[in-house]
Protein backbone atom coordinates (compact mmCIF):
# COMPACT_ATOMS: atom_id res chain seq x y z
CA UNK A 1 0.00 0.00 0.00
CA UNK A 2 1.37 3.42 -0.98
CA UNK A 3 1.08 6.02 1.81
CA UNK A 4 0.31 9.67 1.08
CA UNK A 5 3.12 10.72 3.45
CA UNK A 6 5.68 9.03 1.20
CA UNK A 7 4.21 10.49 -1.95
CA UNK A 8 3.67 14.11 -0.90
CA UNK A 9 6.32 15.95 1.11
CA UNK A 10 6.91 19.56 2.09
CA UNK A 11 10.55 20.04 3.06
CA UNK A 12 12.05 23.14 4.64
CA UNK A 13 15.79 23.49 4.57
CA UNK A 14 18.69 25.88 4.77
CA UNK A 15 21.51 26.56 2.34
CA UNK A 16 25.12 26.82 3.56
CA UNK A 17 25.59 30.13 5.45
CA UNK A 18 27.49 32.97 3.78
CA UNK A 19 29.67 35.14 6.00
CA UNK A 20 30.73 38.60 4.86
CA UNK A 21 32.56 40.56 7.53
CA UNK A 22 30.53 40.37 10.71
CA UNK A 23 27.32 39.43 8.88
CA UNK A 24 26.24 35.79 8.47
CA UNK A 25 23.41 35.14 6.05
CA UNK A 26 21.58 31.78 6.09
CA UNK A 27 19.15 31.35 3.19
CA UNK A 28 16.04 29.21 3.78
CA UNK A 29 14.00 27.32 1.18
CA UNK A 30 10.86 25.23 0.96
CA UNK A 31 10.40 22.33 -1.44
CA UNK A 32 7.18 20.57 -2.35
CA UNK A 33 7.97 17.05 -3.55
CA UNK A 34 5.55 14.63 -5.17
CA UNK A 35 6.86 11.10 -5.71
CA UNK A 36 4.88 8.73 -7.89
CA UNK A 37 5.80 5.23 -9.09
CA UNK A 38 5.86 6.53 -12.66
CA UNK A 39 7.45 9.93 -12.11
CA UNK A 40 7.78 12.89 -9.84
CA UNK A 41 7.45 16.63 -9.37
CA UNK A 42 9.46 19.17 -7.37
CA UNK A 43 8.64 22.82 -6.65
CA UNK A 44 11.43 24.54 -4.77
CA UNK A 45 11.33 28.20 -3.75
CA UNK A 46 13.31 30.58 -1.55
CA UNK A 47 11.40 31.61 1.59
CA UNK A 48 13.58 33.77 3.83
CA UNK A 49 17.00 34.91 4.93
CA UNK A 50 18.31 34.67 8.45
CA UNK A 51 20.74 37.51 9.04
CA UNK A 52 22.96 37.26 12.06
CA UNK A 53 24.79 40.42 13.06
CA UNK A 54 26.19 41.51 16.44
CA UNK A 55 24.59 38.48 18.10
CA UNK A 56 21.12 39.39 16.81
CA UNK A 57 19.21 37.31 14.27
CA UNK A 58 16.77 39.00 11.91
CA UNK A 59 14.48 37.19 9.47
CA UNK A 60 14.02 38.75 6.02
CA UNK A 61 11.16 37.10 4.09
CA UNK A 62 11.66 36.72 0.34
CA UNK A 63 8.46 37.71 -1.46
CA UNK A 64 7.77 36.54 -5.01
CA UNK A 65 6.21 39.70 -6.45
CA UNK A 66 5.54 38.08 -9.84
CA UNK A 67 3.49 35.27 -8.27
CA UNK A 68 1.62 37.70 -5.98
CA UNK A 69 0.69 39.88 -8.98
CA UNK A 70 -0.38 36.86 -11.03
CA UNK A 71 -2.62 35.66 -8.17
CA UNK A 72 -4.12 39.16 -7.83
CA UNK A 73 -4.82 39.22 -11.56
CA UNK A 74 -6.47 35.80 -11.39
CA UNK A 75 -8.51 36.78 -8.34
CA UNK A 76 -9.62 40.06 -9.91
CA UNK A 77 -10.73 38.36 -13.14
CA UNK A 78 -12.60 35.66 -11.17
CA UNK A 79 -14.43 38.25 -9.00
CA UNK A 80 -15.29 40.33 -12.07
CA UNK A 81 -16.62 37.25 -13.91
CA UNK A 82 -18.76 36.15 -10.92
CA UNK A 83 -20.18 39.68 -10.40
CA UNK A 84 -21.03 40.10 -14.08
CA UNK A 85 -22.62 36.63 -14.18
CA UNK A 86 -24.80 37.42 -11.11
CA UNK A 87 -25.84 40.79 -12.60
CA UNK A 88 -26.71 39.15 -15.92
CA UNK A 89 -28.76 36.42 -14.15
CA UNK A 90 -30.71 39.04 -12.13
CA UNK A 91 -31.45 41.11 -15.23
CA UNK A 92 -32.68 37.98 -17.02
CA UNK A 93 -34.91 37.06 -14.03
CA UNK A 94 -36.47 40.57 -13.93
CA UNK A 95 -37.31 40.35 -17.66
CA UNK A 96 -39.05 36.99 -17.21
Amino acid sequence: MIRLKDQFQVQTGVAPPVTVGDVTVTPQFQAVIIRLPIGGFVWNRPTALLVEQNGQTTRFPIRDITRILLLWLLGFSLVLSIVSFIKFSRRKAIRL
Partner: protein
Amino acid sequence: MIDTRTRILSLAEKTSEQSSALFDRIFAAAHSEAVYSKPVISGNHTVITASEVTSGGGFGSGGGIGPELPLSMIKKQDDEAAPHSEHVNGGGGGGIGGGGGSTGRPVAVIIIGPEGVTVKPVLDVTKIALAGVTVGIVMLTTFRKIWKVSKG
Protein backbone atom coordinates in the same frame (compact mmCIF):
# COMPACT_ATOMS: atom_id res chain seq x y z
CA MET B 1 10.81 -17.92 -26.65
CA ILE B 2 13.81 -17.74 -24.32
CA ASP B 3 15.19 -14.93 -26.47
CA THR B 4 11.98 -12.94 -26.14
CA ARG B 5 11.85 -13.45 -22.37
CA THR B 6 15.50 -12.41 -22.04
CA ARG B 7 14.84 -9.35 -24.16
CA ILE B 8 11.82 -8.35 -22.04
CA LEU B 9 13.78 -8.93 -18.82
CA SER B 10 16.65 -6.79 -20.06
CA LEU B 11 14.11 -4.16 -21.05
CA ALA B 12 12.72 -4.16 -17.51
CA GLU B 13 16.25 -3.76 -16.13
CA LYS B 14 16.89 -0.91 -18.56
CA THR B 15 13.62 0.75 -17.47
CA SER B 16 14.65 0.50 -13.83
CA GLU B 17 18.09 2.03 -14.58
CA GLN B 18 16.62 4.85 -16.66
CA SER B 19 13.89 5.62 -14.12
CA SER B 20 16.40 5.93 -11.27
CA ALA B 21 18.50 8.30 -13.42
CA LEU B 22 15.37 10.32 -14.22
CA PHE B 23 14.37 10.46 -10.53
CA ASP B 24 17.86 11.66 -9.60
CA ARG B 25 17.57 14.51 -12.11
CA ILE B 26 14.07 15.51 -11.01
CA PHE B 27 14.80 15.46 -7.28
CA ALA B 28 18.07 17.38 -7.73
CA ALA B 29 15.81 20.45 -7.90
CA ALA B 30 14.91 19.91 -4.23
CA HIS B 31 18.42 20.89 -3.09
CA SER B 32 19.48 24.33 -1.85
CA GLU B 33 21.99 24.76 -4.73
CA ALA B 34 19.07 24.79 -7.16
CA VAL B 35 17.44 27.76 -5.42
CA TYR B 36 20.40 29.86 -4.25
CA SER B 37 23.33 30.66 -6.51
CA LYS B 38 26.94 30.68 -5.34
CA PRO B 39 27.92 34.08 -3.88
CA VAL B 40 29.43 36.48 -6.40
CA ILE B 41 31.80 39.06 -4.95
CA SER B 42 32.04 42.44 -6.65
CA GLY B 43 34.02 45.06 -4.77
CA ASN B 44 32.53 45.48 -1.31
CA HIS B 45 29.33 43.69 -2.25
CA THR B 46 28.41 40.01 -2.28
CA VAL B 47 25.47 39.05 -4.48
CA ILE B 48 23.35 35.88 -4.26
CA THR B 49 20.48 35.12 -6.66
CA ALA B 50 17.38 33.36 -5.32
CA SER B 51 15.29 31.49 -7.88
CA GLU B 52 12.15 29.41 -7.93
CA VAL B 53 12.73 26.00 -9.54
CA THR B 54 10.10 23.60 -10.82
CA SER B 55 10.98 20.16 -12.12
CA GLY B 56 8.91 17.18 -13.17
CA GLY B 57 8.87 14.07 -15.27
CA GLY B 58 7.45 10.66 -15.86
CA PHE B 59 8.00 7.44 -17.72
CA GLY B 60 6.20 4.35 -18.78
CA SER B 61 7.00 0.95 -20.16
CA GLY B 62 5.21 -2.04 -21.52
CA GLY B 63 5.93 -5.46 -22.89
CA GLY B 64 4.28 -8.70 -23.76
CA ILE B 65 4.79 -12.24 -24.99
CA GLY B 66 2.58 -13.73 -27.67
CA PRO B 67 0.54 -16.92 -27.13
CA GLU B 68 2.55 -20.15 -27.07
CA LEU B 69 1.80 -22.22 -30.13
CA PRO B 70 1.87 -26.06 -30.09
CA LEU B 71 4.89 -27.55 -31.90
CA SER B 72 2.66 -29.64 -34.17
CA MET B 73 0.91 -26.55 -35.44
CA ILE B 74 4.21 -24.83 -36.16
CA LYS B 75 5.49 -27.93 -37.97
CA LYS B 76 2.34 -28.10 -40.06
CA GLN B 77 2.72 -24.48 -41.10
CA ASP B 78 6.45 -24.90 -41.70
CA ASP B 79 5.98 -28.00 -43.82
CA GLU B 80 3.84 -26.02 -46.21
CA ALA B 81 5.97 -22.94 -46.56
CA ALA B 82 9.20 -22.59 -44.62
CA PRO B 83 11.96 -25.02 -43.53
CA HIS B 84 11.71 -26.88 -40.19
CA SER B 85 12.05 -24.97 -36.96
CA GLU B 86 12.65 -26.60 -33.57
CA HIS B 87 11.54 -23.55 -31.58
CA VAL B 88 8.03 -22.69 -30.49
CA ASN B 89 8.18 -18.92 -30.59
CA GLY B 90 5.11 -17.01 -29.62
CA GLY B 91 6.89 -13.70 -30.27
CA GLY B 92 6.82 -10.63 -28.12
CA GLY B 93 7.95 -7.11 -27.74
CA GLY B 94 8.15 -4.11 -25.50
CA GLY B 95 9.08 -0.51 -25.21
CA ILE B 96 9.90 2.27 -22.83
CA GLY B 97 9.38 5.99 -22.97
CA GLY B 98 9.51 9.01 -20.78
CA GLY B 99 9.98 12.69 -20.55
CA GLY B 100 10.58 15.54 -18.20
CA GLY B 101 11.43 19.17 -17.87
CA SER B 102 12.36 21.91 -15.48
CA THR B 103 11.99 25.67 -15.27
CA GLY B 104 13.63 28.31 -13.17
CA ARG B 105 12.77 31.95 -12.53
CA PRO B 106 14.71 34.52 -10.51
CA VAL B 107 12.69 35.71 -7.51
CA ALA B 108 15.06 38.02 -5.67
CA VAL B 109 18.61 39.28 -5.53
CA ILE B 110 20.34 39.34 -2.13
CA ILE B 111 22.99 42.00 -1.74
CA ILE B 112 25.32 41.93 1.24
CA GLY B 113 27.36 45.09 1.56
CA PRO B 114 28.78 47.57 4.05
CA GLU B 115 25.30 49.13 4.39
CA GLY B 116 23.80 45.79 5.44
CA VAL B 117 21.71 43.11 3.77
CA THR B 118 19.13 44.07 1.13
CA VAL B 119 16.69 41.78 -0.64
CA LYS B 120 15.66 43.17 -4.04
CA PRO B 121 12.64 41.41 -5.60
CA VAL B 122 12.77 40.56 -9.31
CA LEU B 123 9.61 41.32 -11.29
CA ASP B 124 9.00 39.19 -14.40
CA VAL B 125 7.35 41.87 -16.57
CA THR B 126 6.91 39.53 -19.57
CA LYS B 127 4.99 36.96 -17.51
CA ILE B 128 2.73 39.64 -15.98
CA ALA B 129 2.11 41.28 -19.37
CA LEU B 130 1.26 37.95 -21.04
CA ALA B 131 -1.10 37.00 -18.21
CA GLY B 132 -2.70 40.46 -18.33
CA VAL B 133 -3.28 40.32 -22.07
CA THR B 134 -4.75 36.78 -21.82
CA VAL B 135 -7.09 37.76 -18.96
CA GLY B 136 -8.09 40.94 -20.84
CA ILE B 137 -8.98 39.05 -24.02
CA VAL B 138 -10.99 36.42 -22.11
CA MET B 139 -12.86 39.09 -20.12
CA LEU B 140 -13.66 41.16 -23.23
CA THR B 141 -14.98 38.07 -25.06
CA THR B 142 -17.13 37.10 -22.04
CA PHE B 143 -18.55 40.63 -21.64
CA ARG B 144 -19.30 40.83 -25.36
CA LYS B 145 -21.21 37.54 -25.24
CA ILE B 146 -23.14 38.62 -22.11
CA TRP B 147 -23.98 41.96 -23.73
CA LYS B 148 -25.17 40.24 -26.93
CA VAL B 149 -27.35 37.76 -25.00
CA SER B 150 -28.87 40.47 -22.77
CA LYS B 151 -29.66 42.65 -25.85
CA GLY B 152 -31.08 39.91 -28.03
